């Protein structure tokens, strides 16, 4: 029994961890991304290639997921649509990461009234209903891929800022930060070269959560016609188009829905992994490896 207690260290799948195989969620995510990015290699039919003679074709060897109302290949549309969705997702997450980190780190570093103003600003931004905010922005700036990315990015920034602020405060409270100042290093230098690598695991975890939100946000906005505009296609657009034929061809709407579900699930699982202590250690190890290689 005593041994059992000692052996209770929470290492899931020890063999896989030892072999350095990433978790299933990460692998699946990679597969989805690769499929979408390499869509032209995976499917021969273009997403806009019309074949009016075969609308709503069932799944065949030629069209794995069948065709839509004007005979376009659904698999092709799903993968090409995924490209746009992932592009919006990546763009907005990157935007939120950069803006949020600067925002949060500034608040943490300045403290006092600057901190108050910045963080209350974040609270206010988070209190605005996302769809409503997007609606106003789309009305003001028009619906385009760029504006969709910007809107989503701005909506995700406050949560990144909050995370960045809390971990920066935690990290700058440690002696190595004030020692750095005592040895004459500037604050910006310290924050970017020493604090940032140390808080990276937390920021990456937040970015993964943000990515999941971005996909849902893109899908919702496109579904209500405020995001990606047809004839361009994304998972949200596909879902909306398929919704119209839910009784004729359930797989039409089901395929993008499953893709959204899977991607969001995987992103959340990856985020969960990243924020667990073991993963932070692994991430730190990885960061170290990267540093040594660079030298």
């Amino acid at each position: 029994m005593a041994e059992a207690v000692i052996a209770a260290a929470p290492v899931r799948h020890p063999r896989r961890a030892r072999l350095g195989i990433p978790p299933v969620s990460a692998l699946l995510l990679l597969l989805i991304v690769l499929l979408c990015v390499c869509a032209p290699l995976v499917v021969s039919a273009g997403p806009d290639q019309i074949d009016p003679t075969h609308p709503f074709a069932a799944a065949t060897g030629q069209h794995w997921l069948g065709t839509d109302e004007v005979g376009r290949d659904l698999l092709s549309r799903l993968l090409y649509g995924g490209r746009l969705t992932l592009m919006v997702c990546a763009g907005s997450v990157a935007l939120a990461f950069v803006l949020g980190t600067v925002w949060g780190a500034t608040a943490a570093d300045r403290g006092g009234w600057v901190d108050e103003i910045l963080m209350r600003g974040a609270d206010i931004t988070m209190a605005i209903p996302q769809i409503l905010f997007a609606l106003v922005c789309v009305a003001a700036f028009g619906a385009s891929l760029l504006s969709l990315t910007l809107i989503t990015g701005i909506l995700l920034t406050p949560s990144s800022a909050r995370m960045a602020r809390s971990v920066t405060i935690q990290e700058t409270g440690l002696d190595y930060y004030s020692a750095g100042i005592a040895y004459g290093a500037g604050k910006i230098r310290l924050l970017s070269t020493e604090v940032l690598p140390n808080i990276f695991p937390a920021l990456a975890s937040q970015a993964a959560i943000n990515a999941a939100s971005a996909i849902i946000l893109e899908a919702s906005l496109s579904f209500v016609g405020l995001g990606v505009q047809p004839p361009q296609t994304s998972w949200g657009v596909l879902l909306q188009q398929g919704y119209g034929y839910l009784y004729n061809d359930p797989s039409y709407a089901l395929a993008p829905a499953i893709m959204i579900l899977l991607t969001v699930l995987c992103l959340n699982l990856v985020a969960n992994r990243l924020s667990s202590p073991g993963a932070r250690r692994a991430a730190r190890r990885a960061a170290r490896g990267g540093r040594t290689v660079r030298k």
Partner: protein
Amino acid sequence: MTAASPPAPLLDVRDLEVSVGKTPVVRSVSFQLAPGERLGIVGESGSGKTLTALSVIGLHRAPVRVSGGQVLLNGTDLLAMRRREIDKVRGARISMIYQDPATSLDPLMTIGAQITEAIRLHEPVSRAQARNRAVELLGDVGVPSPRERLGAYPHEFSGGMRQRVMIAIALACQPEVLLCDEPTTALDVTTQALVLDLLDRLCREHGVASVLITHDLAVASGFCDKIAVMYAGQVVEQAAATDFFERPVHPYSAALLSASVDLAADISRPLPTIAGQPPVAGSLPAGCAFRSRCPYADEACATGEIELHSVGGPGIGGSEVGVAEARCIRPLTDNASRGNRGQQAARLTQGVIDG
């Protein structure tokens, strides 16, 4: 520069006032440090030792702020400097060692990178030159096979070794003043002695003046030339180390000394303590802050601000500092302190552990 002190002070702290919000926590602290001199600041927890050191180098953070005084390093006021100017002084001319070597190194940087960074912050040397200097420094502080260890991360070092690395970083640019904030508190006794020996040797070799902050009187007695005792945010006694340990002047110093226990102490008897509690910052009594715990206190102690003034004659042992200074109107003058030390200690401290 006054003509009174023969060697011009390297570091001259004048009437330093530090407060948290509106509450004063360091009150009118002054001390001078000649080149190569070592000052020990001792006192209980919360007496303002660390805040004094942090404010000297400008590392205090809101809500702590310096509300008055000057910190002159070679005549220039560090407190009046702009950020960019003080960045050039920190590390290059005045440096600091921290209490906890576990957190004072960046866990994600190799120690080599951390030492070379400290060098290259102040000196326009190439990466390779800085690396060579780092190897020398590491060897100097007694890290075995320094060249190989440059690529190691802090977690691969023991506490004592990390503190050695910290010392190497602190001395990387040959500062004139080194502030040591309880540098050995987190280390075990053996390592403590080794690290102190190292500091002692390096300070002597490089002619570094140092301020050692500690609550360990034994550490201070072995390392320092001068001792400043802090109580409730004030320096209550300042004297040459030899004089101080021979015959403390302030009743609080005497109590502190007789409350220290060494291996020769009889453990069957209750440990000597100073009765009562230190006053709370912000609600200090008028007059002497130690009054309520002092066996010699009378009504006169309760009125007016007591200034730090010289007490007694020139010091014994031919010390340069000569006279002791104390913030006390009933100092333990020669006849009193030479009279019966045992009795005096008994008056100052009481065994409060119930037998």
